[in-house]
């Protein structure tokens, strides 16, 4: 089985983000692997270890994505493709999906594993759109995955009514939830080996496509704004009975929630 895992580098959501004149201030930002893509990498490596799958990752981003890719190598990914194309700035999920489609078509992959969502966009679209472009079946929000035979996997997905169990014919696309696994910390040996591994870097021309072919963005961010942060209100410390009674009174008579 040949697996293609999609991985994006995103801004670290744990740090403060400042906005000036409708744009995010770059100064002081740090970038990390998208958390859900780390789950995707772990899922791919587990299939390598348990089922002898071959693992390739693809990331669309700048040259500075190489640190992240080395981390994925250290986790156990075998091959990596970096699509470094500055003119893709301003791309939306549809443009990324077209580029990923091109990458998919250069190899004979059986399974694409994407993150369910990128932490910078919070879109949750790219993997699903890719499956439509490839005309492949797709299950999103996957929380477990097991190989049935050469051509089928069984996945469970968290849906609205409960856990949906689906038999998926390969080739297919899945997008994974953070509940699927706990990404490993790379071992020292893996980190050392990862340093020497080659990364295949391509632009759109080398991939055999062009900006025209991947198309324009269907929507664009005009402006970033500060989110309306809530203010902490009244905080009570002291005797539990006293403060709890006080708060219940406020809830009823000030916030008027129990009526």
């Amino acid at each position, binding site marked *: 089985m040949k697996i293609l895992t999609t991985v994006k580098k995103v801004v670290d959501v744990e740090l403060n983000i400042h906005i000036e004149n409708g744009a995010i201030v770059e100064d002081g930002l740090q970038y990390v692997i998208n958390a859900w893509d780390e789950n995707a990498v772990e899922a791919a490596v587990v299939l390598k270890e348990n089922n002898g799958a071959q693992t390739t990752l693809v990331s669309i981003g700048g040259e500075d994505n190489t640190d992240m890719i080395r981390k994925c190598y250290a986790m156990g990914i075998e091959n990596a493709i970096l699509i470094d194309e500055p003119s893709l700035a301003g791309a939306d999920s549809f443009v990324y999906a077209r580029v990923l489609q091109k990458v998919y078509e250069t190899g004979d992959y059986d399974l694409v594993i994407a993150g369910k969502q990128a932490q910078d966009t*919070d879109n949750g679209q790219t993997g699903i759109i890719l499956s439509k472009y490839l005309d492949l079946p797709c299950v999103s929000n996957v929380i477990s995955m097991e190989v049935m035979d050469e051509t089928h996997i069984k996945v469970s997905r968290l*849906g609205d009514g409960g856990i949906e169990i689906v038999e998926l014919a390969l080739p*297919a696309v899945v997008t994974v939830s953070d509940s699927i696994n706990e990404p490993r910390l790379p071992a020292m040996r893996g980190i050392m080996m990862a340093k020497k591994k080659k990364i295949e870097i391509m632009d759109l021309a080398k991939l055999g496509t062009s900006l025209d072919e991947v198309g324009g963005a269907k*929507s664009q961010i005009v402006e970033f704004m500060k989110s309306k942060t809530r203010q902490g*209100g009244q905080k009570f410390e002291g005797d539990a009975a006293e403060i709890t009674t006080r708060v*219940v009174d406020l809830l009823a008579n000030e*916030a008027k929630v129990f009526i």
Partner: protein
Amino acid sequence: MVKILVIADIKEGVLKGSTAELLSKAKELGAQTAVAAIGYGIEPLAQALADAGSDTQYIADDSSLELFSPGPYADCVVQAAKLFEADMIWFGFSETGKTVAPRVAASLDAACATEITDVTLEGEQIQVIRPAIAGKVIQRIKVNTKILVALVRAGAFEASSGMAGTQNVLPLSIPAPDLRAVIKEIVLDASGDIDLADADIVISVGRGAKDQAGVDLVKDLAMDLAAGFGSSRAMVDGGFMAHNKQVGQTGKIVAPSLYVAIGISGAIQHLAGMTGSKTILAVNKDPEAPIFNVADYGIVGDLFEVVPILREEIKKIRA
């Protein structure tokens, strides 16, 4: 006139409140409205769909649609969108919506916007507002296509009265089942529980409750109040709470009148799911817990001590 197709949110044969919220907003925008309802045994909902504010009801009702399958479901939506010539297609922010909306957008060559909190129309130009980066920023987005598919964040729009539409049912043709992604089974949630999305009060439990006894203690409070009973991810990972009870970025987005966080630290991914609540109460023994930065009322204390008192005092006040 702009045409907005709302996808009905139906669970266990019941029409969820979000459908009326979306239809109300569509009418406020001056749109012509239609609704698409997909499932099995849902025909009896036609009147409720009209009452919720739709003037046309596209209904796909078939036993093959009983178990949710995104491919056929998306086919039905695309069919309705084409028949109606929709300019916008709106889904509620459910797991069903999240997996179907991008498929529909790709089929219609439309833009797709997730988790929108507002939408504006100037002539043909559609713009939307939405949070991103775990709620740390807000984006204004300009749509470059004629059609927009959007997922509306829970609590973004309010249902208003007097929006009832007219019944005009049009059946959709039933798509072939997806043989490449065969749904075998749905392991149902504990039924009978109050759906978090509908609850006026949500009580959530976190790692501070430690074990089953702690979870049960907090659950009793939820039962007293007929509240939805939610959870942080820590308690889902710990096996104490079902997956569908998780509130947050990867869980449910809730916006009740009252949200009570008990033994929850307030990680950014949890906040992303609940800061739209009207009033927030937090109980945490750590006075520095970040949850207090968003709580209107904070009780610094041991939940094992505070929760029983909360129950008593609330009973008194409601008596």
